[in-house]
């Protein structure tokens, strides 16, 4: 499933303008700890987190993830969005908690 299709089906708000929304989502990694994402996330996965600070973009870019979903109506910092645009990393926002967002995505990707 492509990033933009996923965003539409999960009612996520896409918060960036650049970034490849046509990219394939290969899976998902959920974590709020950067070291954990660095160690375990896989290329192409979409990352679900509560973190909103700029370092998340660097990590997502390094691991070549397909995008970042920030949950619980959290708003990313301005610097974070700037970096995301520069890196072409899609940032999407979910109004639901992490558990529900991840759970819905799991259901979506399996069917």
């Amino acid at each position: 499933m492509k990033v933009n299709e996923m965003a539409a089906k999960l009612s996520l708000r896409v918060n960036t303008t650049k970034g490849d929304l046509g990219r394939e989502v290969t899976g998902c990694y959920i974590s709020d700890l950067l070291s954990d994402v660095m160690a375990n996330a896989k290329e192409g996965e979409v990352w679900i987190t509560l973190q909103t600070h700029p370092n998340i973009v660097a990590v997502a870019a390094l691991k070549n993830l397909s995008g970042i979903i920030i949950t619980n109506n959290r708003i990313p910092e301005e610097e974070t969005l700037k970096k995301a645009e520069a890196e072409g990393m899609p940032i999407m926002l979910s109004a639901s908690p992490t558990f529900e967002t991840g759970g819905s995505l799991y259901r979506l990707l399996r069917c």
Partner: protein
Amino acid sequence: MGGEFTHAGAASSELKTILTGLGISADLVRRAAIATFEAEMNVIIHAAAGVINYSVTPDKIQIVVSDMGPGIPDIELAMTEGYSTAPDWVREMGWGAGMGLPNIKKNSDELRVESVVGEGTTIEIIISKKEGDACEGE
């Protein structure tokens, strides 16, 4: 208790036990414990040392947390959800998301924050008690 993560939360845990033992309602105990815990973590993350004092009277629970940390230059900014001055390594321990002061405010009925940059910060948390709670004046 500043700078030391091993026993982080122990003081708040103790307070929770004490307040429960005084017969205070679970909801008020929970709010007091959360507010104190967040304040305790702020001291541990940012300050070299700090002290927690509390008192329970018929009408309220008052908790005062003072530290000798760096102080807060802009208190209003610090109260903004998501604003954090915590170093990166703290984020990897599960803290530093900028929710501390907002969580304290959410759980208290009155909150006073006084701070002098370079000297330290004092936070006073007041939780009003409903009528009919058992208590011992301190």
